[in-house]
C-alpha cells in the first residue's frame, strides 16, 4: 500500500475516532444488557472511514437528497453505526444509552424512521444489497453522483438474495454501488467455514461480474485506498472483501464466537473498558 497518499494526521485521527467508537459500542451494549458486540467491533474501521472521511453527508440534514448512502445490511452490528452517527452529530451521544429500551430512537436493529442518519431499515439479513441496487439505480436515473455503500456480513453471503442482487448490480452496471464484506470468519453458530462454507468468496463475486478488492479491514490506509479505487470504477460494481477480526480491540472478545450476540457482565465490561481506555 502506498502510505504517502494519506497524511499521518488523517490516519491517526481516524484511529482515535475508531477507539472512541469501540468504547461507545461496549458502553452501550453493556448498558442495554443485550446486543451484538462482536460484529460491531469487526466493522469499526470500515464504518469510521466511511462516516469520518469518505461519505458526503450533512448531519444536520439527514435526508439531504445528494448525500452518499450507507446500508448496514448486517443490521445486528448497529452499535457501530449508532456510535458513528452520534459522534458525527446526527443525534445526541446520550441517546446511545437508550439502545434497545422502550421508546428509544435506537432499535435493536436499524430503523430509518426512528434514527436520524439511518438510510435504510435493516436487520433481516440478505436484503441490503438489493436495496442498494435500488438506490444506485435511482442515482443513475436522476443523474446524481452520490455513492451507495452496503456493508455485508460474511455469514450473510449464505443468503440467496445477496446473489440475486449481485447479478442485478452487474447487469445494470452500477459503478456507484460498493459492497464491503466484513469477513471476520465467524457467525452465530460457529466458524463460517464449518457452518456453510462461502469460499471462494472473491471468485464468486468475480463470476457475478464484480470487480473484487481484498484488504485488511482494520488498516485505514487499505480501507481508504480501496474505497477510492471502488469509486473510480466505471460500469462495474466493486466489492471490497475486508478481512477482519470479530470482536477486534477487546482481547477476550477477539475471534470468540460467543461474543456475536451477548452483552458483557459488569466484570467483563470493566475489563474491556480498561483495555480500551488504556490504549488512548
Amino acid at each position, binding site marked *: 500500500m502506498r502510505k504517502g497518499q494519506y497524511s499521518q494526521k488523517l490516519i491517526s485521527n481516524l484511529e482515535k475516532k475508531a477507539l472512541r467508537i469501540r468504547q461507545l459500542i461496549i458502553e452501550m451494549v453493556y448498558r442495554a444488557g443485550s446486543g451484538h458486540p462482536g460484529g460491531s467491533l469487526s466493522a469499526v474501521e470500515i464504518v469510521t472511514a466511511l462516516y469520518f472521511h469518505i461519505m458526503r453527508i450533512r448531519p444536520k440534514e439527514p435526508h439531504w*437528497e445528494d448525500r452518499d*448512502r450507507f446500508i448496514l445490511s448486517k443490521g445486528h452490528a448497529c452499535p457501530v453505526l449508532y456510535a458513528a452517527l452520534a459522534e458525527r452529530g446526527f443525534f445526541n451521544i446520550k441517546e446511545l444509552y437508550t439502545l434497545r429500551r422502550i421508546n428509544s430512537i435506537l432499535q435493536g436493529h436499524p*430503523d*430509518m*424512521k426512528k434514527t436520524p442518519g439511518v*438510510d*435504510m*431499515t435493516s*436487520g*433481516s439479513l440478505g*436484503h441490503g444489497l*438489493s*436495496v*442498494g*441496487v*435500488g*438506490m*444506485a*439505480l*435511482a*442515482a443513475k*436515473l*436522476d443523474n446524481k453522483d452520490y455513492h451507495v455503500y452496503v456493508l455485508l456480513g460474511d455469514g450473510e453471503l449464505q443468503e440467496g*438474495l445477496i446473489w*440475486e*442482487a449481485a*447479478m*442485478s448490480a452487474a447487469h*445494470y452496471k452500477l459503478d456507484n454501488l460498493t459492497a464491503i464484506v466484513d469477513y471476520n470468519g465467524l457467525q452465530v453458530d460457529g466458524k463460517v467455514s464449518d457452518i456453510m462454507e462461502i469460499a471462494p468468496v472473491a471468485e464468486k463475486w468475480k463470476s457475478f461480474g464484480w470487480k473484487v478488492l481484498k484488504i485488511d479491514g482494520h488498516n485505514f490506509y487499505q480501507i481508504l485506498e480501496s474505497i477510492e479505487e471502488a469509486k473510480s470504477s466505471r460500469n462495474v460494481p466493486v466489492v471490497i472483501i475486508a478481512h477482519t477480526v470479530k470482536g477486534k480491540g477487546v482481547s477476550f472478545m477477539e475471534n470468540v464466537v460467543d461474543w456475536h450476540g451477548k452483552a458483557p457482565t459488569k466484570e467483563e465490561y470493566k475489563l474491556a473498558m480498561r483495555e480500551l481506555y488504556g490504549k488512548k
Partner: protein
Amino acid sequence: MIMSNVMMMTMRESYGKTLVKLGEKYKNIVVLDADISKSTCTYYFGKRFPQRWFNFGVAEQNMVSAAAGLATCGKIPFVNTYAVFASMRACEQIRTMIAYPCLNVKIVASHGGISTGWDGVTHQGTEDIGIMRCIPNMTVVSPADPIATEKLIEISVKHKGPMYIRLARNPCPIIYGDDEKFTLGKAKILKEGNDVTIVATGIMVFEALKAEEVLRSKGIYARVVDIHTIKPIDEDMIVDSAKKTNAILTAEDHNILGGLGSAVAEILCRSYPAPMEFVGLKDTFGESGSPQELFKKYGLSHKHIVHRALKLLKRKKKVKV
C-alpha cells in the same frame, strides 16, 4: 338479463395502459417486473419509458427490495409479479423493507384467485389477501373490473405509502362506467335491498350482481357492496349493511380464512353481530381447469352465492325468533 351483453376486458390490459398514462404525468414513477411483463402488461410502459422500466428477471425478492431502495430516493416504484410470488416469495421483503419503513411502493399482483385457471395451484394466489392484510401500514386493494383497476391505480399514485393491488388474470366483465369515482376505503353499493347484503371483492362482485338478479326473481332483495379496498375496510358500510339487512354474505376468490370474509367478521363480531355466510375457497387449494369449471367445482359461482344467501336467510329468521 342485463348482464348477458357486458363488455369483457382484462384488468391487466387496463392496468398496463393506465401505467403509461400515469408515466407521462409522473416522472418519478418507475416500473419493475420479474420476467412476466407481457403477462402483467408493463411492457407498454417499458416501450414508452425504457429508462424507467426495469426487468429484474426471475428474482422477485431482489425486485421488491430494490423497489424499497428506489422509494427511499423519491421514486414511486410499481412492482409487478403474480399474487403468489408477491405475497409469499417476496413476503418478508414486503413486510420488513417496504411496510415497516412505510415506503411508497405499489405492489401490483396479477393472477389473484383460482380464476387464474389452467396454470393450476402454483400460479393461483389464494392466500394473498390474508397475508397482506395482516401487515401493518399496508393498504390492500382489489378492483372489481378494468375500470375500477384504472381508477384505483390512478388513486394509488396519490396515496403515499405501501399498497397491494390484486388483479385477476382473465378477461372480466366491465361493470363500471368510465366516469365512476372511487375513494380508497369507501365501499360502493351497487344494488339496494333489505333482505341480505352480499359483500364482494374483485371479480366476485360480478358474480354477486348475477346472484342478486336470481334472488330478485325469487322475491329476495339483496344489497350488493363492492369492497374494492379490503384494508382499510369500510367499517361504516359493513355495520350499516348489518343493521339494514341483518344478514351478511361475503364473496371472494380467495381462501375463506384470512381474507375479505374474515375482515368483515372481525367488524361484525365487534360492532354489530349478525348472521354471516362465506363464499370462497373452503381452506383448500384449487387445480387446473377453466375459471368457470373451477368456480363450479369449488363453490364460487353466482349459483353458490344464491344458495348461501338462501341458507343465510333461514338462519336469519331463526335468530329473529
